[in-house]
């Protein structure tokens, strides 16, 4: 699997451990939400990094208590038409204040990559050999956007009303450092 992170190809140090396989002592791994909830104590005391793979029919709110400590959450796109994980990403970033890496995997079109970054996803896994230039180009196809989202990009509304951007009510969206760095 190729990993596109922050707009560049990067090595992937993580692997997913299936529920019926033993979790190794070393190496960065992700486990299912079920396993994380069942074996949390043991997993949290691992010396190596441990993340969670969320299925797209599981509620992101189940990670409320752990969001601050997780280094990686993986989100599933079983078919490109299945957009549930876009909302999961926004809940993790905006509601739970998740700061770690959000990684998408599955069937991902280049034309979805930009929306993913807007929803706070900062890395996508692509099949080996899949040309990545198109994905990178897709990040630059638009230079203005209407909706406030999880990436901290300045919206059309804020550009129209600069004074308003500082005084808007309530908390600003929580943006992870990695996402903020990724914002173009």
């Amino acid at each position, binding site marked *: 699997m190729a990993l596109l992170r922050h707009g560049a190809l990067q090595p992937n140090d993580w692997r997913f451990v299936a529920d019926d396989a033993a979790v190794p002592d070393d190496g960065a791994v992700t486990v299912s939400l079920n396993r994380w909830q069942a074996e949390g104590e043991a997993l949290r005391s691992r010396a190596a990094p441990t993340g969670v793979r969320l299925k797209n029919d599981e509620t992101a709110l189940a990670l409320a208590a752990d969001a601050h400590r997780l280094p990686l959450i993986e989100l599933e796109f079983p078919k490109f038409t299945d*957009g549930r994980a876009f909302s999961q990403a926004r809940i993790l970033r905006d509601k739970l204040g998740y700061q770690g890496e959000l990684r998408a995997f599955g069937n991902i079109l280049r034309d979805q990559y930009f929306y993913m970054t807007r*929803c706070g996803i900062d890395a996508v896994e692509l099949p080996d050999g899949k040309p990545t230039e198109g994905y990178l180009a897709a990040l630059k196809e638009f230079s203005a956007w209407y909706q406030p989202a999880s990436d901290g990009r300045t919206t059309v*509304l804020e550009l129209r009303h600069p004074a308003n951007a500082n005084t808007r009510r309530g908390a600003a969206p929580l943006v992870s450092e990695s996402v903020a760095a990724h914002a173009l």
Partner: protein
Amino acid sequence: MYRYDEFDATIVQERVQQFRGQVARRLAGELTEDEFRPLRLKNGLYLQLHAYMLRIAIPYGVLSSKKLRKLAYIARRYDRGFGHFTTRTNIQFHWPQLNEVPDILQHLAEVEMHSIQTSGNCIRNVTADQFAGAAADEIEDPRPWAEIVRQWSTFHPEFSYLPRKFKIAITGAADDRAAIRVHDIGLRIVQNEAGETGFEVWVGGGLGRIPILAVLCRRFLPKEHLLSYLDAILRTYNLLGRRDNIHKARIKILVQATGGEKFAAMVEEEWEKIKDGPLHLPQAEVERIHRYFAPPSYETLAEIDAEFEAARLEHRDFARWARANVVKHRIAGYAIVNVSLKPEGGTPGDVSADQMDLLADLADRFSLNEIRVTHHQNMVLPHVRKRDLYALWQQLKAAKLATPNLGFISDIISCPGLDYCTLANARSIPVAQRLSRHFSDPRKLDEIGELRLNISGCINACGHHHVGHIGILGVDKHGQEFYQVTLGGSSKDDAALGKIVGASFSEDEIVPAIDTIIQTYLANRAGRGERFVDYYRRVGMDPFKEALYGPATARRPAAE
């Protein structure tokens, strides 16, 4: 009318470039048709029976004369000289060449138009009351809010891969002309006890295979919270809507399965968390958008115009048209003119390039440059001085645009049907044409009175047959086209879904069957004041069944 600022223009221009690239990749063979499909659909480009079809958005049905002239140009240059207006107030061109579509989009961008999200499982073109800003019964103009929703929904990063398509309608009037109860979300501007205006929010309506009327989700939503509330509904739907069965994926199924009250409670819970966040609408933006919809500079006129009254007395045809197609305006001395796109023997919603150019000229001359498209597939000149009505009528009449049939049985809503559409089971247009010929005598129309007849060529219900007073649905019976008839539907404040009258009719039987239904009504109604749908609600299905199929005792049980 809204005008793009630099940001709106940039987004639409960048979309043209993006699509030009996608088409180039397809034509070069870098994309297979399967890979290209989701990309073109997001831009309203379908592959139909004979050719590609391009559906262009007309946000909340509002056109300027300049925009309409551009559509006429596209019809001539890239199509076969006509366009087809749809129930989503969009326009479809049925014969464009794929390699020319990016050029069409470029032409559209020049007049601040696009085809963004006119297809696909995303938030579609938002529709509104076609008389917005002109209606005498309006509480507030819905167009500024429709524009705010248009911008919020355009390329929404979270809601572009929904379980299914999503349609929003807005009305600001007492009389619901926007059919809000058959939309995924229906918004109505209302006034609360404190005299403030806000939105009544309906959710989970829709037609298609499983027609359902929307339920009330919130009685009063302060306007500043519109977008956060829409976000809360969409997020709930995006996470929980069914994705295992395309026919059960609309929000209406989720709302019914969850229960209206529980669904509303889930939305409220989500909304509480986000309502004061960045989606909270700044007053400066609300005011900026509203300025574009400030009332035009009307003349001060008397409500009664002597020239108009005289012309009405002198010309019976004109008087009939004025009675059927002209509606009261909120400003004294002005009128709203409905332009019927349902001439005798015509295709409902079709307009030729010449007619478009003429309508653009007439809008400049008589209607402060404005034109509207209606979900009944007609057009509207919203601001006409009463003293100009006779001159306008003469011009419309010469162009076959003055059929005096608005709201009558020949004002038929029809999908394109099997003549164009790959989904259809039966042809719709020829049935609409034959019915419009059968019911062409204006005196007959007068006698029948208000009657909404809608035709769909398949169960997907693009012709809204469920909400016709009389609905006709094309079905396939062993490879033959048949037509099922429903009675009693409505999309207005008395919203209701029609019920099937009995066994379906063949192509040859359908017009006589509708005639029998009308004769039954005329012979038995309690006077002219009782509309067809009121008569049906009073007496039910039996008199119609008996007239169509014979006495109950002699009847075989209907297959349906």
